[in-house]
């Protein structure tokens, strides 16, 4: 048996093959049950004892050779196949048209999660409510000029003898005394009330429907320092860690003292300058976030809570406004226009 001849023949045949499949078929002709290797092995029994010894060894080494060569050949062909694969990886595939969430939904979720972490539960209170909850209990009797600040959308529903006219709430603050009532006038209270509000303004910067989020915290020993701590926490979580807040004196009937909150401008970071020019967003380095204050004792009393034992803070901010400040979504009329070109952005 001339092994070297066999090897030569094998290499010759292998070299003619061009595909992995052909090599696999070829493999069977050598290594299969009826393949050449087995045939050689069958021939052994015809040999002398002396010849058997070397023939066995030769056949085994030949088998190893065959296996190795076939593997080598296959790998070479695989490599060649892989090298031949060519796609434009940047070509967009066929796709389902993506859907979208409304930008208010995105903001509401983000805000609710931030407050949830410090133990504030999210609540939902009526959008159609009595004057009683929207004004009266908020220290705004019917004759009060402060009601001017909340132009009101009234409904034709039958007025309640005690609670006054039926209206669409101009703010989420109607939830304040409602939450006190829900908790049977027993603090602690930690609430975020997010909802739709309505005021009869319709121009470039106002829509007759908008969203507010209302924070209310009532407990023993709640201080202005606590309000500042909460505002800082929220503002840094929502707008970024370097954002600063400041309180300015203001007046709301349902808080005492009352403040307006400003935050450092998200565009110029409070410097009032962008590339050496006056910042177009804020002009002064600060942006107004909204109104806040310490809950007025009359509001606590209206909710059945003793202001000598408890104190609290409250705020009400516009969601469209924080979206504008954070994401620059400036034309708020798009929010409720139903225009799919706007909705698809988000």
């Amino acid at each position: 048996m001339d092994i070297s001849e066999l090897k030569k023949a094998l290499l010759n045949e292998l070299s003619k093959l061009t595909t992995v499949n052909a090599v696999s078929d070829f493999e069977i002709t050598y290594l299969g049950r009826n393949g050449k290797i087995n045939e050689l092995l069958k021939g052994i029994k015809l040999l002398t004892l002396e010849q058997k010894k070397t023939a066995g060894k030769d056949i085994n080494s030949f088998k190893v050779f065959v296996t190795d060569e076939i593997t080598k050949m296959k790998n070479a062909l695989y490599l060649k196949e892989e090298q031949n694969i060519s796609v434009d990886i940047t070509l967009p595939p066929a796709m389902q048209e993506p859907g979208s969430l409304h930008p208010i939904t995105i903001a509401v979720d983000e805000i609710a999660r931030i407050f949830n972490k410090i133990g504030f539960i999210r609540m939902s209170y009526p959008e159609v409510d009595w004057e009683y909850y929207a004004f009266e209990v908020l220290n705004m009797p019917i004759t009060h000029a402060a009601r001017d600040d909340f132009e009101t959308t009234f409904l034709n529903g039958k007025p309640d003898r005690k609670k006054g006219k039926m209206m669409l709430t101009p703010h989420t603050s109607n939830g304040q005394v409602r939450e006190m009532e829900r908790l049977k006038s027993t603090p602690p209270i930690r609430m975020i009330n997010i909802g739709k509000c309505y005021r009869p303004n319709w121009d470039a910067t106002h829509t007759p429907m908008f969203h507010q989020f209302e924070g209310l915290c009532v407990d023993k020993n709640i201080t202005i320092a606590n309000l500042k701590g909460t505002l800082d926490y929220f503002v840094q979580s929502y707008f970024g860690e370097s954002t600063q807040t400041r309180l300015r004196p203001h007046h709301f009937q349902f808080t005492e003292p009352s403040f307006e909150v400003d935050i450092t401008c998200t565009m110029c970071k409070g410097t009032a300058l962008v590339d050496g020019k006056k910042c177009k967003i804020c002009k002064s380095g600060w942006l107004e976030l909204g109104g806040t204050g310490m809950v007025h004792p009359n509001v606590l009393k209206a909710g059945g809570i003793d202001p000598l034992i408890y104190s609290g803070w409250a705020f009400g901010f516009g969601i469209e406004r924080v979206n504008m400040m954070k994401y620059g979504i400036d034309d708020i009329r798009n929010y409720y226009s139903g225009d799919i070109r706007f909705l698809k952005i988000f």
Partner: protein
Amino acid sequence: MNIKITHSWLLDYLDTDATPIEIQKYLSLCGPSIERIEEVNGETVYDIEITSNRIDTASVMGIAREAAAILPMFGKKAILKKKELKIPYFEGTGVPITITDPEGVCRRVLGIVVEVRGVSSSPAYISNRLSATDMRSLNNIVDVTNYVMTEIGHPTHVFDYDRISTHNLILRHAKNGEEIVTFDDKKYLLDDKDIVIDDGTGTIIDLPGIMGTANSVVTQDTKRILFFIESNDPVSIRRTSMHYGIRTMASTINEKNPDPNLALTALYRGIELFTEVADAKIVSPLIDIYPKKQVEITISTSKRFIDAKVGVEIPLDKIVSILTNLDFKVEVKNNDLLSITVPTHRVSDVTIPEDIVEEVARVFGYFAIPPVLQPPVYVTQPKETELLFLYQYVIKLFLKHKGYSEVMNYSAVSKELLSQFDSEKTEHLFITNSISEDIKYLRQSLIPSLVKNVKQNEGFAKEIKLFEVAKTYIPTNSLPKEEFKLSIVTTVSLDDLKSILISLMKELNISFSIEGGGSNSYLLQSVAGTISTGTTKYGTFGQVKPILSRNVGVEKAVYVAELSFKELMNAARVMPGYKSFSQYAHITHDITIKKIASYSELKKKAFDISNKLISMSPISTYKDTITLRLEFTDHNRNMQESEVKSEVKKIQAILS
């Protein structure tokens, strides 16, 4: 409200080394917000927001007083220049003049007759200051009234004394239907809640505190004036000025309850100016009807209370100096108790200890209070509320991932849209003072808005796929029932809508069935279905009646679903009910039968009869037959072929 004052005017009352920029910055942090500084005709003008409780700051004098208390906290010199105002003593009876308030409609009435040299233009400094602060300079006499209002903070008025021929002024309530003509020549019909001035003959000569009338105001020929200042009832002023829409600066101030004691200051300052600009000579005694004098009040509180509300300790001497600089008088007992006398110009605003906290804290500086989060506590959230927000987000996110866009429409729609949907006869709550007919009727279904969205977007997208989660408002005897609905609209196909609904129910792990028909009057009865579990109905879906969608201008088929959010969230589960899977073989068998009922009914019957059936799906339909693929298994062992055959036979029997 906003007021404007000039820097030079402010310096008449304030000795300071602070620049306008510093004044803006420090006052805004601790007092009134100075929103803007403008340069007008060489004057530096402050545009200041005055909150409704601080009408005492709506003047040059008021701002100077705030500045004198605030600027020293920032190391700036600021001393209030208090003017010594007095008028010449008048002897004798003077010209005839009677002013009476028999019904007691005013808190204070001041009047004095003054002879003037003639009506001409004002000196330059007066007309400059007026025009820089957005007031029209008219003549030397009228200008003084506006000038005094801005400088002192109390509205004033002048009559032409000789045009009131009776020389008699009676303050009274108007009669229903009484007519007046204001000096801007507008006519109003009054009612018995308005307050007027009668000249004794029944003729009205003024709408006090709001606007003068044409028959009594100063003209070019005026020789003698009645300088008249009254403190009105703020509620009445507000009512009348809102009722007739007469919004003047005077009414805006008067409805916020300015200090009646300020009226006399304004009168003195007015006389001083009339003397300067028109050689004024007093020709009558001063009439001052002031039955119930505004007095100072006293508030008792303590340093401990202030510290407890602020959350940081403020030294006692600082508390005292802040309050003293704001014209409060402070008595301290035991280094803690404070007895604070509130000046009359602050009594309408500062009434309770919390108001004192505000005064101290704002001037101390809110910026000087450290931020400290309150300790966390646990508050129970109602389970229903928790689920509402959880599933709102789950469902919205799911629909977004399925290619649908979330839309938010106004909660109210137009009558036109309701009638396009044949719903104008249904009782809806509506807005009585709506600013637009487009948003008047509170929605009871989201479908009309969504179909309108389809129309609106026709040009912008080939296929429309939208959803909305919003409240609907169902009228009751009291407040409406506010129910969240989930509504979906698509123009793709009924199957597209169905597949969304089915996968949504799967996402929420709700087992459900679909039946034909439903109670939704917007849907084509033959292409309508109801999704339910037992007796719980989640809602309906199908094709909008073409006549309705065509009413909105949509020609192609529109498919919608409207589901009750509450029912969905109550049935939803985070985890599906667990049943172990069968270890044994699943055997599939197809049957073709005559379709004698809806697919849902066939399916229900099949599952009821065979407990080995684990799934059924339609393969194809042909004429009146349907081919179904049935899948069987047994949880305890492999099924024999004969067993499968007997199950199939049972099913075939029940479905025929």
